[in-house]
């Protein structure tokens, strides 16, 4: 495999493609420079990453870094929550009982057949505005001691924004869990009937068959598609900016508006998302290889 891919031979197709790419970017560059006459200026950017705080005499994160941190927290917690929900509903999808089957099916179909943006608004107005107040997050800062506060702040970001962050986490998790449900279902169904029968024949109960025989094999098989879905989740996290979750895309919009440096800001943020997603892909590839080689 590494042999055949490492030895490329240059052919006329490559030349055509290369010329095409150069031509395309040349054209874009030409348009931007001569027709739009845009003056690139990156000087403002560091100031929006960090700011010098006179009061504490230290460097504090400014809007863009704050947004990035929120996006990271948002992605991290929704990945965990979505995986938990997805595994439960995924197992329900393969259940023999009617109610769990029907319920998980309904959930998956509802979410998959509504545009994400519409789902987010519906979620925001009807679900999160009802549930989030019940969690009592608004008064949390009064109830927590200083250490408690700094722990919560490290895990979930500024205490004053907790309800906001949690809406984002729930929204993303519920949305992505529908896709994870289907991934988990196909993983479970890919384990052969013979495995289940062997498990039955040594007397394991239905739950034990699932827990000790089917799930471990299913998990191994769903890691690659799951990793793909996590990366999609990170990218999708930008749409919760629509319900004013203070994450990277939302704050980028603010910076773009206030500085008017629209091009620079969006090019920069595109790079940030790319680095984020690509490093995730690399981590998962590592993990996959480790799992693969661990059993022979």
């Amino acid at each position, binding site marked *: 495999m590494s042999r055949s891919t490492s030895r490329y031979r240059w052919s006329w197709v490559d030349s055509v493609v290369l010329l095409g790419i150069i031509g395309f970017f040349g054209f874009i560059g030409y348009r931007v420079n001569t027709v739009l006459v845009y003056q690139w200026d990156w000087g403002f950017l560091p100031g929006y990453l960090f700011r010098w705080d006179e009061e504490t005499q230290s460097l504090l994160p400014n809007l863009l870094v704050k947004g990035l941190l929120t996006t990271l927290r948002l992605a991290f917690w929704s990945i965990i929550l979505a995986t938990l929900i997805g595994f439960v509903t995924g197992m329900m999808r393969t259940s023999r009982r009617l109610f769990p089957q029907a319920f998980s099916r309904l959930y998956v179909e509802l979410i998959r057949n509504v545009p994400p943006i519409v789902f987010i608004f519906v979620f925001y107005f009807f679900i999160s505005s009802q549930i989030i107040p019940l969690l009592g997050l608004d008064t949390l800062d009064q109830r927590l001691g200083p250490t408690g506060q700094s722990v919560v702040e490290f895990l979930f970001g500024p205490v004053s924004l907790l309800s906001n962050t949690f809406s984002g986490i729930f929204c993303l998790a519920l949305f992505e869990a529908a896709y994870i449900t289907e991934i988990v279902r196909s993983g479970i169904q890919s384990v*052969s009937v*013979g*495995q289940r*029968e*062997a*498990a*039955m*024949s*040594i*007397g*394991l*109960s239905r739950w*034990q068959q699932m827990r*000790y*025989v089917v799930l*471990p*094999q299913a998990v*191994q098989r769903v890691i690659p598609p799951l990793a793909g879905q996590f990366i999609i989740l990170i990218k999708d996290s930008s749409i919760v900016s629509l319900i004013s979750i203070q994450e990277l895309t939302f704050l980028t919009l603010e910076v773009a508006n206030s500085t008017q440096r629209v091009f620079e800001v969006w090019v920069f943020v595109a790079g940030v998302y790319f680095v984020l997603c690509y490093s995730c892909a690399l981590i998962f590839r590592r993990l996959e290889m480790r799992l693969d080689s661990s*059993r*022979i």
Partner: protein
Amino acid sequence: MNENTSNPIIEMSGVSKWFGDFQVLKDVSLQVFSGERVVVCGPSGSGKSTLIRCINRLEEHQEGRIVVDGIELDQDTQHINKVRSEVGMVFQQFNLFPHLTVLENCTLGPMKVRGLSKKEAEALAMEYLQRVRIPEQAAKYPGSLSGGQQQRVAIARSLCMQPRIMLFDEPTSALDPEMIKEVLDVMIDLAESGMTMICVTHEMGFARTVAHQMVFMDEGRIIERSPPAQFFSEPEHERTKLFLSQILSH
């Protein structure tokens, strides 16, 4: 037969089963006594697998009664689980758990169903791996074993549950010829230890040495049942004769 003959350990009476409109088992009755060894044969599709899979409820019968070791197989899951833990089963395709080592394959049932500690279960597993002559492979994963070795592990895995009855569904059919003997040898050992066994197999040499009773099935019915001496020398039915002539000719 060594125990009281009035009380069979497996009793099937008037068992019928359908897959959709297709009737696989037609009014089958079969008694097996403790310590008895029964070999089931018959043409492909005659319902042999279905018959033995009904005994540990991998298939559900629709008519008739099946009582195993005094427990009737009905809708009660507790009955089903109890029967399954008393009845071991060996499959044609081995069905070892690929994500567990040989040892873990063997300890899973004893630990989770019987509630043995890890240490006890491992001691038990090593004992049975010894018996199937493969203790040195305990730490390996099934994927790295040969077919014959895998099937012997599968037998050990069943034995670790210390079942009273063992069911075999064509245990050597998926094996290369040179591996068949190592599996049959293990099964013969098991037979000599007095295990109650029902084997679906076309290994007639094995049947002759081991079986107390031969059962011949055709189209969902038990057509003939007799001790091997009689079964092979003077089969009663034309259908049996034809089958035997086909299977013994090669």
